[in-house]
């Protein structure tokens, strides 16, 4: 269903451009598509949508709790809402609204939380969600997705129009490394096996997918065969794939731009111990707060690098 690009480089299209373009095409064919924003239209890249569909573009002001409730209410009368804010304000700030008005009420709401983890860069620690997925993961029936590149983001945003439930999409806004060929289709709830390997599996998400592929190359140079999985759906977790990787490679490294507490590493570990127990090392935020800096600075500061994945892989292989 998906095809990998031959080389992995910065994608020419920004993630937010892919988001807006997809929303425009969805809205053209479906009158029920509505977009909500909390005074961040310039940031979410949705200006064109707000100009093209002024009635169906709903400005909520800086009031995220209300925005989530309005989205729930819109879905009550058949609308298909996509509500955006920066990650922390689209998750931890509105946790109860997502829980009660959307999820418990069994309504139909898509939430776009942008600037995951270190991609919040200059906005600093207040705006840097290392916990958004973890905070939301304990909400029953919610689906948590971190699209890897603009091709996947477009496909996911398109698919969500026809699905029912509460979906949180952790969206980088700017350039990401392109991984997938245009036209690729993704199955929500299933991880993508990007590279085969036998000694260890690297299960990554978001900006860490490209680092994982780089790490696999580095490991290959040292004679270690690393498998790479893009686990873009965090909930529901692809337990079957985790079990297969544990079985076939005997060791797992997780890599995420998120707190390892309540994050991808924790979710993979749960899946692993319930199926085929194997040693796991986790690359990610080690229960720390965010801070200000360039994305490159922050990646180094928090060890979100291919080198860190390589180190973790060697360590976990020794634990076999």
């Amino acid at each position, binding site marked *: 269903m998906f095809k990998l690009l031959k080389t992995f480089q910065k994608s020419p299209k920004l993630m937010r451009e892919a988001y807006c373009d997809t929303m425009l095409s969805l809205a053209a064919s479906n009158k029920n598509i*509505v977009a909500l924003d909390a005074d961040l239209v310039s940031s979410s890249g949705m200006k064109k949508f707000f100009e093209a569909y002024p*009635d*169906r573009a*709903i*400005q*909520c*002001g800086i*009031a995220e*709790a*209300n*925005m*989530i*409730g*309005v*989205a*729930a*209410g*819109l*879905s*009550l*009368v*058949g*609308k298909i*809402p996509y509500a955006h804010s920066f990650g922390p304000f689209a998750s931890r700030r509105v946790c*109860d*609204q997502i*829980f*009660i*008005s959307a999820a*418990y*009420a*069994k309504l139909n709401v898509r939430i776009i939380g942008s600037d995951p983890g270190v991609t919040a860069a200059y906005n600093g620690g207040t705006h840097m969600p290392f916990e958004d997925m973890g905070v939301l993961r304990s909400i029953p029936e919610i689906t948590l997705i971190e699209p890897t590149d603009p091709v996947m983001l477009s496909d996911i945003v398109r698919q969500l129009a026809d699905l029912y439930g509460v979906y949180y999409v952790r969206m980088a806004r700017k350039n990401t490394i392109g991984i997938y060929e245009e036209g690729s289709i993704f199955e929500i709830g299933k991880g993508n096996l990007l590279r085969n390997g036998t000694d260890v599996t690297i299960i990554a998400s978001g900006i860490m997918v490209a680092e994982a592929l780089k790490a696999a190359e580095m490991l290959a140079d040292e004679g270690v065969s690393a498998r790479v999985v893009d686990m873009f759906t965090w909930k529901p977790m692809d337990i079957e794939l985790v079990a297969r990787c544990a079985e076939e490679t005997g060791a797992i490294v997780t890599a995420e731009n998120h707190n390892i507490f309540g994050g991808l590493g924790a979710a993979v570990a749960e899946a692993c111990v319930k199926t085929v127990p194997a040693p796991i090392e986790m690359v990610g935020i080690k229960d720390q707060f965010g801070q200000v800096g360039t994305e490159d600075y922050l990646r180094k500061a928090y060890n979100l690098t291919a080198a860190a994945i390589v180190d973790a892989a060697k360590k976990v292989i020794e634990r076999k």
Partner: protein
Amino acid sequence: MNRTLKLKELRVFAEEIRLLTLKEFAYTGFGHVGGAMSIIETLAVLYGKEMRFDPNNPDWEDRDHLVVSKGHSGPAVYATLALLGFFPESMLRELNQGGGNLPSHCDRNKTPGIDMTTGSLGQGISAACGAALGKRLDGKDSYTYLILGDGECNEGQVWEGAMFAAQHKLDNLITFVDLNGQQLDGFTEDIMDMRNMGERFAAFGWFVQEVNGHDIGEIVSAVTAAKAQKGKPNAIILHTKKGNGCYFAEGIKDNHHMNFKPEQINEAIRQTEAALEAAKAAPAK
């Protein structure tokens, strides 16, 4: 469908709702008596005259919606829905029972006729705004009704919703604020003073009316005026008594959630039966 009860019939309907709500509470021996009693006349007006609904098709898409944001008033709404045939009266025995369909707080997935899940206070206004806006986008002429508690208005989200409704000119949203002056821990003036409620909503750009929330005629007139004005969301401030019409709850400080004895609820039922007979016997005006 749309019922078209006259004032006298609405007064009778209100007593029927009160009576059935008390009988429902009698099954449990405890409950949110205060806040259920204070909105009964409003429910009578909504379901007896103003609202469009179909008990045989609770999800009818052209219906009016009601969001009871003070979700703890559920028992009064359940009694109303049972009287209208949304479900059999015998189901009222399920109030607060494990596995039942009538929880303390309104749940749209459990109870036929409940439009929105509420109970985490402050959230209903946002959902009501969304429903009102969505209907306007579809060119529907139906209304969204919302019932807020005065204690509930402590929640900041209420005022986020109030700003939103005014900004988006949601004149198809009709909000009742149950200004009964009490919240769980005591009188609102001692907890978080909300007595100038009307001024607050007016300051947020709403069309505000203040009525005696136990006077059917005043509520009807206010809804008529609300439907006539264009461009602003509507707030009808209901001056009410928490526990109204239930002698052991009315005028008591701790009447938000209370336990009571069988003889107390039986006496309240007896008094309400008398009130119902009196309403039936009263001249039609």
